[in-house]
């Protein structure tokens, strides 16, 4: 959507500082004595509070100030303390942010849990406990989430010894509801059945493990068990230098061809952190590449969803892969790679469009021209298919309020009628100069999520088409693909920033704290799939098993991003 008067992403950080003081004063009057201190993060003002006042402060901010979106919880270690940071936003206006900083003592890192206020904080705090080792009082279920239960130590602490051997048991999982079985007199006999789905299962889209308790064919309880692909992405990024070494990793978070979207998340964060300008020409190329990735990603989402619903390797899957192959060949022309592009650089992109440019434009236009026909085929195969409709309409329902509470973003949120798209609401790149619409559906069910993705493909095609027009007419002497960026980037010590972009699955955010060196002090990834997957129990409990599978497929998770 074109909203010319809104500020572009690059100078958002600078302009946001002006109204900050008024906002801090407002927060201080709202929270009173709870505010111990204020800090300045590049994206938002931060208030420092006592560890035992977390719930009071968060619920005031949620209920009275309208911060209904807890994007992320970051935990980190300082030489003298531990810190949890709650990054809060508003669904109505994601540029209105506030960070709540909760310092805790180094010898006893215990703070009150925010999970009773924001449902989504539950998993984020479990992750903070797992990796950094902060204890959260009053947390409903504080146990390890990414690492095995038997793991010793917390790997993102400074004193963690990585060479120490670890033991992983092969213990089987136990039925968590066995104790409260009903309707049976005899000891040890239960009318519920415990079912492990995954981690090797075709319908879990990777290595997800669902601990499911069934009553007959109904799902009583489902607990996603993640961490089977926890590849230490945050540690890897903390070991790399800003300029070049981090950029290859974002490709591997959401690996379903969403590489450029992820790279943009890092590029945007680091560019705002180090105050780097990006030439407009590069922004247009980025916008085009990112939308190509979105199409490829949604095609696979659609194909695998059809696979889950309709059965074996069927026509829809093959046809979706065919469109993906075409998108990938365009991306390969542009970036030189099929999947792991590593094409963005801080301050621009790696190289200009391939030459001859006319051939590239023709290839892209051919792909775009074929899309309406392909979309029509998919509508024939999927959305107009009676069996598909029976299986997806009114199953896996999640209402907007619950979705917000779980921090759902992306197509999952938009299918529940939440009009939230960072490309429009917190514009970056070239999106605010182009003509397009945010797609929303009100059905809240599996069918709506499918529809949203299919309609987003059309919008993406529209964006790419406009980008091609722009690139074709771009004067030859103004094709600046990279701005002048210093070889070594050393952002100022203790500069903190949280920035997000609209990835294929939703709000993909990155928090970076600079420690004065050329590597990040803390690099935290806010993965949209992590939050979206957390809402699966809300969708699936009480439904039948096939609906659980359909709900999981419609969430379109990618485990590389869930586990990071």
């Amino acid at each position, binding site marked *: 959507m074109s909203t010319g008067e809104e500020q572009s992403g690059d100078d958002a950080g600078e302009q946001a500082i002006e109204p900050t003081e008024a906002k801090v004063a407002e927060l201080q009057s709202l929270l009173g004595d709870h505010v111990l201190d204020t800090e300045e993060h590049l994206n938002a003002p931060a208030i420092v509070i006592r560890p035992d006042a977390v719930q009071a402060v968060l619920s005031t901010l949620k209920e009275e100030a309208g911060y209904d979106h807890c994007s992320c919880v970051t935990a980190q270690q300082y030489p003298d303390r531990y810190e949890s940071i709650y990054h809060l936003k508003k669904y109505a206006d994601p540029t209105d942010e506030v960070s709540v900083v909760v310092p805790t003592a180094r010898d006893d890192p215990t703070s009150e849990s925010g999970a009773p206020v924001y449902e989504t904080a539950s998993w984020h705090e479990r992750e903070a406990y797992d990796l950094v080792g902060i204890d959260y009082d009053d947390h409903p279920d504080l146990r390890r989430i990414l690492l095995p239960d038997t793991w010793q130590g917390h790997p993102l602490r400074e004193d963690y010894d990585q060479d120490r051997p*670890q033991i992983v048991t092969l213990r089987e999982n136990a039925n968590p509801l066995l104790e409260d079985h009903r309707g049976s007199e005899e000891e040890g006999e239960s009318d519920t059945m415990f079912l492990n789905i995954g981690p090797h299962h075709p319908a879990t889209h990777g290595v997800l493990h669902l601990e499911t308790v069934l009553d007959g064919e109904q799902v009583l309880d489902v607990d996603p068990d993640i961490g089977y692909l926890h590849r230490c992405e945050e540690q890897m990024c903390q070991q790399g230098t800003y300029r070049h070494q981090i950029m*290859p990793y974002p490709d591997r978070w959401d690996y379903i061809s969403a590489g450029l979207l992820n790279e943009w998340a890092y590029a945007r964060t680091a560019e705002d952190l180090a105050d780097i300008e990006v030439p407009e020409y590069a922004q247009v190329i980025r916008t085009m590449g990112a939308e190509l990735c979105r199409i490829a990603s949604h095609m696979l989402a659609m194909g695998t969803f059809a696979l889950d619903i309709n059965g074996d390797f069927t026509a829809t899957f093959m046809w979706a892969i065919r469109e993906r192959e075409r998108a990938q060949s365009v991306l390969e022309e542009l970036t030189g790679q099929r999947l792991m592009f590593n094409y963005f650089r801080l301050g621009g992109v790696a190289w200009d469009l391939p030459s001859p440019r006319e051939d590239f434009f023709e290839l892209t236009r051919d792909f775009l021209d074929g899309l309406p026909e392909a979309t029509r085929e998919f509508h024939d195969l999927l959305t107009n298919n009676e069996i598909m409709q029976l299986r997806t309409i009114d199953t896996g329902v999640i209402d907007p309020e619950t979705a917000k509470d779980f921090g759902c973003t992306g197509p999952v949120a938009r299918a529940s009628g939440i009009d939230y798209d960072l490309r429009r609401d917190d514009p970056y790149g070239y999106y605010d100069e182009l003509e397009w619409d945010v797609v929303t559906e009100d059905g809240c069910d599996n069918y709506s999520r499918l529809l949203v993705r299919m309609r987003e493909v059309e919008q993406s095609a529209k964006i790419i088409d406009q980008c091609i027009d722009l690139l074709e007419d771009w004067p030859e002497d103004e094709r600046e693909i990279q701005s002048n960026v210093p070889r070594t980037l050393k952002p100022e010590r203790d500069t903190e920033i949280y920035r997000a972009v609209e990835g294929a699955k939703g709000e993909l955010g990155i928090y970076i704290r600079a420690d004065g060196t050329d590597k990040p002090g803390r690099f935290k990834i806010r993965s949209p799939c992590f939050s979206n997957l957390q809402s699966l129990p809300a969708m699936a409990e009480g439904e039948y098993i096939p609906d659980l599978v359909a709900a999981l497929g419609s969430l379109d998770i990618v485990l590389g991003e869930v586990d990071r």
Partner: protein
Amino acid sequence: MSSDEPRTAISGSTAPVTDTRDARRGEGVDDRFNSKLREAFGSSPFILTKFDKFMNWARGSSMFLLQFGIACCSIEMMHTFAVKHDSDRFGAGVPRASPRQADVMIVPGTIVSKFTPRMKRVYDQMPEPKFVIGMGSCTISGGPFQEGYNVVKGAEEAIPVDIHVPGCPPRPEALLYGIAKLQERVANGESSPVVVKPYELQQFSEMEQDEVVDQLADEIDEDDLAMRYNWADSP
């Protein structure tokens, strides 16, 4: 036509079939019709070969792959199965969802500590003879994530691997080449030259007694198998 009456197509002359085929082939023989089976059979309906040789040939020509997605490489693996690359052309394109129906396991991605016992279990469930293709750098050494605290340094820490396909991720063409190489070797009855370390799946009592073991010794049953990863000694 009821089935108790002989049909001409079976009892009668085979000439119509041959004529049709010849008419279709026309001038200049299209060797697509000369299948390997036909070459092996020649003109006579008998084959003279060793039984194990025949079995190897059959095995290599019909491989069922395990549908086993782990990480990034599984996307390229799906592309290998699907249109454009279509590994079915090479007699190895039907992904099976159950390990009990599969001959080949492609390990497509990074293996982390929590997943290794599960992968081992899936491998154990496959019927003999079974083959493993390691896809991507992560299955060789841990790839780009090698320095991670949670990453197992290669699939061979847990299961034997027949063919490594390097790349991050390998292109579908590269995977096809790896599959074809494996088929060739299976058909020739060659055993894997890869030296496989013994599974690091041990009884708990056999493990080196360090502080971690001591700490966990009380919690783990005698019968409970444990998997151990010793980062320091990993290659």
